[in-house]
């Protein structure tokens, strides 16, 4: 047998006018334009009928490929379900906020804001582009919610409506509070600076009447800065003290309080100008650092769980009547109807129909599973055959799948990441107090005033402003560098966590395999005519392998197929050119199978067995180099839900054979990670589906790998776009370098503090020194951290 490469037809393919994909089948035309599928064509038809073709003017091929979907929106007619989705409803109009992942270009924006042209009952629609949300106001009496959603789906913008309302949860998070505090602090800082200048430059004798006035005015400005903008530092320091933790907020709060009290004293007694400008500047810069650290991604959610994978409603069959009900109301014993492409929301027993269920999201096993009547079907599977009827045996919240989330192991184990600055600040605070009291004690017997001055001066000058800023600015710079490379972190603490990692665990399917599908090869000999016959037969089937085969063969000639038959789980057969062709598993063809795995399909033409196609998953590009680079630094493990048919293909790239495990259930994966952690390993887990959710949550750093960041990804610490996968070693190196930058900038700020302390201990600290030293150290730290981080990024090829 020799390896035969089947060549695709050598002709230039036309591009789809709607989505820009190649038109593989030459049959969709409308208005002299070519389309790749009926979906794209129908979107164009709707738009052109409503004079909305400007959609195609702003961008070429703005659409997305339309998968053939048969989604039923009947449940939206149930008032109870509809009202839970609406933001607002009165007698005439309703307002709804929808999350539409397909929003990606200005054409989308234009089209969705001109929805009123398609249907006059839509009063208004407004997009928030970055959040991929649209707020639609419509007259619900003329145009129901179901009609609205169906219309959006028809033009290619299907909103995601799931049990966990990501849209509403994200809108809750708002940074307006901290921005208000920054505004107040900035406002006061500016005014106080202006009022402090005369004092620093010296005033003539006749101007001294203003000195007290400026001083009191400064105090007026300082009051909101301390009690409004700086409030959180006091609260946090107090809370931590009660829990017997010394964090950086303690010296900060102490510094703010001492500065304020000493300023009141000095101004009140007329002995000095106080430290009001240093105080306002300190709070202002600290808040900016805090704000930079809090940056969030509006379009991503790291907190998704099974609820955002499940639909909001399911079709209930009671006494022969189909009725949609919300999933929460599903009870044990209910009979439900699951149509093609719908998800099974609870553990059930199959009562009627041919169940061919895709569990890839739950188990990681890519081949669909055949179920027989009376068999238990676990929640989370997607039916890819005709409609089936099931009886619920466990409520949604107690299914096998959801139990992974509600695992007891996670309860009460809110991971507290111990950051570097937390560790340092413990020693810092203690050292600070010792120095302050020490210098106070030293002056106590000679000069009471000087003792008080040096004590307060130490607390003021050692206020770790630069220290508090070095982590946020470095880490947020890293975040934005990662962001450019399509690696999205949940928060800045994840960078520190990443630098500590020593063990890597990979999931197989979807994580290290490429989304491009399969690498297909054929063993045997086929004439061109035979190829056409096989392709003609296979394109009748909806089975994923048949579709892959048709796509791969790229044949544009078709024969008519008669007496076509599909036997689920076995194969397909049909009569082409008067020859019976059978494609399917070994038992279907009645031959002795040469291989056992599900990635092989055998071909029989007439009475002769002619060969088999084998489907191998493609690895992501650069996988071998990636494993080699990472393997030299870290312990590598691989867990897969699949059978071990791929083992021999993986071994050349992944030589750690005893750290490669197959047939792993989601619970096995979780336990494996736990076992690694028990051996004091810091584990980073890369996974993609629901089946990895438990492991991702258990690991020290869970990364969800996805090829479309808008798709479902389980709860995790970071989301990595598949195209950035090759850069994983660079990301890890960058995280380590970032820690170096933080360490160095801690050193720099310590030098500043020491210089300041030198004056402070002697009781010589004048407000002017403080006013210069504080902003100077801040500016040094901010510029050093961002420059150094970007230089490291260039070294790590991440720009």
């Amino acid at each position, binding site marked *: 047998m020799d390896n035969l490469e089947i060549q695709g037809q050598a002709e230039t393919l036309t591009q789809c006018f709607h989505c820009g994909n190649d038109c593989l089948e030459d049959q969709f035309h409308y208005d002299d334009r070519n389309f790749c599928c009926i979906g794209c064509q129908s979107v164009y038809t709707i738009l*052109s009928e409503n*004079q909305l*073709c*400007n959609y195609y*003017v*702003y961008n070429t091929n703005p659409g997305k490929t339309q998968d053939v979907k048969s989604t039923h929106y009947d449940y939206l007619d149930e008032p109870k379900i509809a009202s839970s989705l609406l933001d607002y409803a009165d007698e005439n109009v309703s307002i709804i906020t929808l999350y539409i992942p397909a929003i990606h270009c*200005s054409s989308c*924006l*234009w089209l969705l*804001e001109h929805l009123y042209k398609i249907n006059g009952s839509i009063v208004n629609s407004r*997009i*928030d*582009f*970055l*959040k991929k949300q649209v707020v639609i106001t419509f007259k619900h009496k003329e145009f129901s919610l179901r009609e609205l959603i169906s219309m959006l789906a028809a033009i290619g913008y299907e909103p995601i409506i799931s049990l966990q309302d990501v849209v509403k949860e994200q809108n809750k998070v708002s940074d*307006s509070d901290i*921005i*208000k505090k920054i*505004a*107040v602090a900035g*406002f006061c800082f*500016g*005014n106080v600076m202006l*009022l402090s200048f005369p004092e620093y430059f010296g005033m003539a004798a*006749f*101007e001294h009447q*203003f000195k007290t*006035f400026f001083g009191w*005015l400064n105090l007026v400005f300082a009051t909101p800065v301390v009690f409004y903008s700086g409030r959180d530092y006091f609260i946090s320091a107090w809370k931590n003290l009660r829990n017997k933790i010394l964090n950086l907020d303690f010296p900060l709060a102490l510094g703010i309080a001492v500065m304020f009290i000493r300023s009141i004293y000095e101004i009140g007694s007329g002995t000095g100008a106080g430290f009001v400008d240093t105080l306002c500047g300190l709070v202002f810069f600290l808040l900016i650092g805090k704000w930079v650290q809090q940056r969030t991604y509006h379009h991503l959610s790291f907190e998704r769980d099974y609820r955002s994978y499940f639909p909001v409603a399911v079709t209930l069959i009671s006494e022969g009547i189909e009725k949609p009900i919300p999933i929460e109301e599903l009870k044990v014993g209910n009979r439900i109807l699951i149509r093609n492409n719908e998800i099974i929301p609870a553990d059930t027993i199959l009562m009627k129909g041919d169940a061919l269920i895709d569990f890839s999201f739950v188990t990681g096993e890519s081949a669909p599973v055949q179920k027989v009547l009376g068999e238990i079907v676990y929640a989370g599977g997607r039916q890819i055959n005709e409609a089936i009827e099931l009886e619920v045996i466990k409520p949604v919240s107690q299914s096998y799948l959801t139990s992974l989330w509600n695992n007891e192991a996670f309860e009460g184990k809110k991971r507290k990441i111990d950051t570097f600055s937390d560790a340092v600040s413990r020693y810092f605070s203690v050292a600070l107090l010792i120095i302050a009291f020490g210098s106070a004690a030293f002056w106590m017997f000679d000069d009471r005033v000087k003792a008080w001055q040096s004590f307060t001066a130490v607390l003021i000058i050692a206020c770790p402003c630069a220290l508090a800023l070095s982590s946020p600015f470095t880490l947020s710079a890293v975040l934005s560098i990662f962001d450019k490379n399509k690696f999205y972190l949940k928060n800045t603490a994840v960078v520190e966590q990443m630098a500590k990692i020593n063990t890597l665990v990979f999931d197989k399917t979807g994580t290290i395999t490429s989304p491009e599908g399969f690498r297909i090869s054929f063993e045997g000999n086929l004439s061109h005519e035979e190829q056409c016959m096989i392709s003609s037969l296979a394109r009748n089937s909806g089975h994923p392998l048949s579709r892959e085969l048709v796509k791969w063969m790229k044949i544009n000639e078709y024969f008519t197929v008669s007496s076509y038959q599909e036997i689920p789980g076995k194969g397909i057969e049909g009569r082409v050119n008067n020859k019976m062709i059978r494609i399917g598993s070994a038992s279907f063809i009645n031959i002795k199978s040469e291989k056992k795995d599900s990635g092989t399909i055998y071909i029989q033409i007439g009475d002769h067995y002619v060969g088999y196609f084998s489907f191998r998953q493609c690895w992501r590009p650069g996988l071998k180099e990636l494993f080699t680079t990472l393997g030299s630094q870290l312990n590598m493990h691989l867990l897969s839900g699949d059978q071990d048919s791929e083992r021999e293909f993986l071994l050349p790239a992944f030589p750690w054979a005893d750290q490669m495990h197959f047939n792993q259930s989601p619970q096995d994966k979780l336990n494996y990670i736990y076992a690694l952690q028990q051996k004091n390993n810091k584990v980073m887990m890369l996974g993609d589906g629901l089946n990895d959710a438990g492991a991702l949550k258990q690991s020290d750093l869970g990364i969800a790998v996805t090829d479309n960041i808008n798709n479902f990804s389980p709860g995790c610490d970071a989301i990595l776009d598949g195209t950035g996968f090759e850069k994983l070693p660079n990301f890890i190196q960058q995280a380590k370098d970032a820690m170096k930058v933080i360490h160095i900038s801690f050193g720099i700020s310590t030098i500043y503090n020491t210089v300041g302390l030198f004056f402070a201990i002697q009781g010589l600290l004048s407000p002017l020194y403080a006013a210069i030293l504080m902003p100077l150290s801040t500016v040094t730290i901010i510029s050093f951290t961002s420059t150094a981080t970007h230089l490291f990024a260039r070294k790590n090829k991440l720009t």
Partner: protein
Amino acid sequence: MNILYFLIGCSVFLALIFLFAFFWAMKNGQNDDTYTPAVRILFDDELPNENKK
């Protein structure tokens, strides 16, 4: 030089007006979406070639 009291009062008053204008803008949601309006403004009301087709 007593005019300084008045001038400083004026400047602080003016600055306060801007501060409250900023608060008002925040509350009104003017900073909620800083991207979409920039794209929206580039759309023509009706593109000329639309009706000819």
